[in-house]
């Protein structure tokens, strides 16, 4: 009887396990998003908001019309790039947490275009090149520390985020500052800006930089020998070495590509996000803050695949854009912070299949502990155990 029950239970568990782990990555991500939204709804309910109306406001604000779509896409633009920074390094087996700092350095480098007075296509091109190069250079230091001295790239990239942040703030306030307004840098001249795509919105043509970079990265990773080596080294460094792949080279390369992506993300903000076209030092650079970190969440939901990242970025961009509508929505003003709760819950929900996977191990630990208690209780009783 109990044996029967046990097998049924384990079969159910195995079934649930198979269903949840055998899902395609896309469905897993969508399920995670739903779970995240549900958790957000529960929290809103607890705090006395109407989740249904709040989410209607959120999604209307994100995808309710042309203006809303443009707004969401504009927010997705830098996220696509910073997500790529994280995911390409992860594909080569490294944790690059440094998109935040690399983005700020890239944004600052693109401001230099303001001093050059270049005609229209040239200004954008030079700005992107400057930003990409600066981002790559900023990521090279942690990469070199890792490859030559074995310094953990997780620590060094986080450190470099702070170094970058305060360095950029100093540049903004003391070096690149606007003579007319002390709290911001000089603005990018109109000729070097990415023109706005939909009038009245902040969506500019800079989104094509992001999408083009994602496509290029997709082709590099899955259709060139370079990408093949990066992926092989990331999945199994020992086998890669056996296959004649130089792992250090692939790591270096992925860091450079990641740095370029983060630098470009900075440029899409300074050169392509109306209305400022400059870095504001005022409230500690609000436009540039957290874009790099949000990119990591986007990369996870996008399953570290360039195409998946585009969709995930549009979703996260929508949450950001819609959240601003949600907090002003008439009788039910839900604070913007709840959107960040939803984002966090989604990232956590991404781990659910992994949790299901470890249930057997947890169960075993539990039974062992239980058995120990039982033994401790009958410690003084004579030993008689069944065969």
């Amino acid at each position, binding site marked *: 009887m109990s044996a029967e029950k046990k097998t049924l239970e384990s079969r159910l568990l195995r079934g649930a396990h198979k269903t949840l782990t055998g899902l395609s990555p896309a469905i897993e991500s969508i399920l995670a998003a739903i779970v995240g939204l549900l958790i957000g709804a529960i929290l809103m309910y607890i705090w006395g908001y109407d989740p249904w109306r709040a989410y209607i406001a959120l999604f209307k604000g994100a995808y309710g019309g042309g203006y809303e779509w443009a707004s969401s896409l504009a927010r997705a633009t830098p996220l696509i790039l910073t997500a790529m920074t994280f995911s390409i390094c992860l594909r080569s087996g490294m944790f690059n947490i440094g998109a935040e700092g690399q983005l700020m350095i890239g944004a600052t480098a693109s401001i230099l275009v303001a001093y050059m007075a270049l005609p229209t296509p040239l200004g954008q091109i030079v700005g992107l090149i400057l930003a990409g190069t600066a981002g790559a250079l900023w990521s090279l230091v942690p990469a070199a520390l890792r490859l030559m001295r074995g310094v953990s790239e997780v620590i060094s990239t986080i450190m470099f985020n702070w170094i970058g942040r305060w360095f950029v703030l100093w540049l903004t306030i003391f070096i690149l500052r606007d003579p007319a307004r002390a709290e911001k840098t000089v603005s990018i001249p109109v000729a070097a800006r990415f023109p706005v795509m939909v009038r009245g919105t902040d969506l500019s043509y800079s989104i094509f930089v992001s999408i083009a970079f994602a496509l290029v990265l997709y082709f590099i990773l899955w259709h060139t020998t370079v990408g093949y080596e990066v992926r092989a080294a990331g999945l*199994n460094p020992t086998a890669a070495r056996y296959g004649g792949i130089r792992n250090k080279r692939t790591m270096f390369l992925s860091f450079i590509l990641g740095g370029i992506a983060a630098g470009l993300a900075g440029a899409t903000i300074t050169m392509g996000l109306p209305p400022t076209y400059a870095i504001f030092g005022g409230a500690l650079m609000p436009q540039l803050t957290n874009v790099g970190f949000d990119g990591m969440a986007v990369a996870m939901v996008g399953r570290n695949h360039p195409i998946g990242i585009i969709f995930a970025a549009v979703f996260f961009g929508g949450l950001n854009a819609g959240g601003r509508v949600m907090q002003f929505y008439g009788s039910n003003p839900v604070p913007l912070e709840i959107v960040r709760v939803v984002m966090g819950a989604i990232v956590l929900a991404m781990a659910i299949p992994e949790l299901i996977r470890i249930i057997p191990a947890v169960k075993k630990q539990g039974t062992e502990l239980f058995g120990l208690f039982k033994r401790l209780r009958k410690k003084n009783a004579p030993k008689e155990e069944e065969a």
Partner: protein
Amino acid sequence: MSDTQMAGAPPVQATLYLRAEGITKVYSDGTVALKAADLELHTHEIVGLLGENGAGKTTLTKILSGLLPPTQGFVTSPQGPIRFTSPREALDFGIGMVHQHFALVGPFTAAENVALSHERPFSGIRLAQTIKQLEELMEESGLRVPLNVPIEKLAVGEQQRVEILKVLTRDVDLLILDEPTSVLTPLEVDELFALLRRLRDKGTSIILITHKLKEVQTITDRVVVLRHGEMVGDVKTADTTTEQLAQLMVGQALDPETGAVELSDKELPQTSTSAPVDRSGAPILRVANLTSRGNTGEIDVDDVSLEIFGGEIFGVAGVEGNGQTELVESLTGLRVPISGEATINGKNILGISPRQIYRLGVAHIPEDRWQLGLVLPFTLAENAILGIHQWEHFKGPLAFLRWNRINAHVRELMDRFEIRAAGPSAPAKSLSGGNQQKLIVGRELAKDPAIIVASQPTRGLDIGSALYIRQTLTEMRDKGRAILLVSADLDEVLALSDRIAIMYEGKFMRVCEPEKLDREQIGLLMGGVSQEQEVAA
């Protein structure tokens, strides 16, 4: 089979401690590791557990120490039947095992490590009490280690003593040691043996897993020999000879009546050489005085020299862990040797990268196909070009991969090597072991190599796949390629090789044609007993 008294040991009141009956172990992948093994253990006794790799020695001891449940059979003690679900239960009962790989926390001291092993949920660490207990125990056993030095600063022999102390603090009656001498210096071995004798005289039952015949003769009272999961011998050490044990270990049955060794009905497999090897020209691979260190820093390949000519299979036999892995890694660019020379067609191969070595015409079928041979999450196609992905044939402009050509190549490999898989885009981890190995073999042979280094090429494979891979190797030999075959499967080495070397502790004990040695001699050489020593003895 006598099971009451043992010779050699002091006349003491040995009593039955444990009886294992009909123990069978089938692993979840279908491997039968043990077939109806019976074992009796007594107090005041050291039992040697002898056998080749995969003979089931470790499986048997893992069952006794509660790490694995048996598939069939049961263990009884004079107090009644016992069944453990965890090593902790076995320890509570009095059975402790010292594993080959130590379970010690490097930055912790010996005392802290021992205290940690006593820790129970919510019990806390009682360091002072442990130190007191350890000091008493060290006094009593003569087993000395510095208690307040971090483990990682201790020598390997000292670390092992900590492991033994860890088990002894639990008052064990049965101590199991898995290949304890493989990491020790000769002096440390003597100290260990002295300790084991003292423990035996105090009544402890001891199981010593080993493949070294000399040790069996030195220390054990009784020897149990396992071969392919079957118990082929259970004899008193004093009643047997090294030769008999060697024969038992490599495959001849013991007459249960007389204790003499019967000739097995299994004939020595003949080599399938079609023509004698032409050794008049220059060898393809030439290795001279190669010396290399293992991962832990000791010399694992010791002054090895060999030459392999085209059209020849050179087999390296020996119990695993005697330097074969390090030899292969040194020759394939995965390990940098400390001295010696190695050339392929006259060009140096030491200290250069695997990529450069491959360009000189070396194909490598690695011993560990999951870690080294394949990127498991990769597809069949992606795995089929590992190492040859830079070929012009597969590359378009701008380093683009020509997937249509790669897929065509994979389909060809699947046809030729009978790789059963859903298609070129099936993940490699979905393949069976045999098909994975065929994929590796196919990929390596596609390199059109001058020399093939095949390390354990048929390990864990079903008979059909193993046969196919052996045939492929002989075909390549007949086409004039040189082959270095390293295998723990003695039958395989004997059947395929034109010449064999027997490796023991990093050295070639003997290099000759397989016909010139009989199994007894091979067994002796594998166990580290060389001809000269025999003469001297």
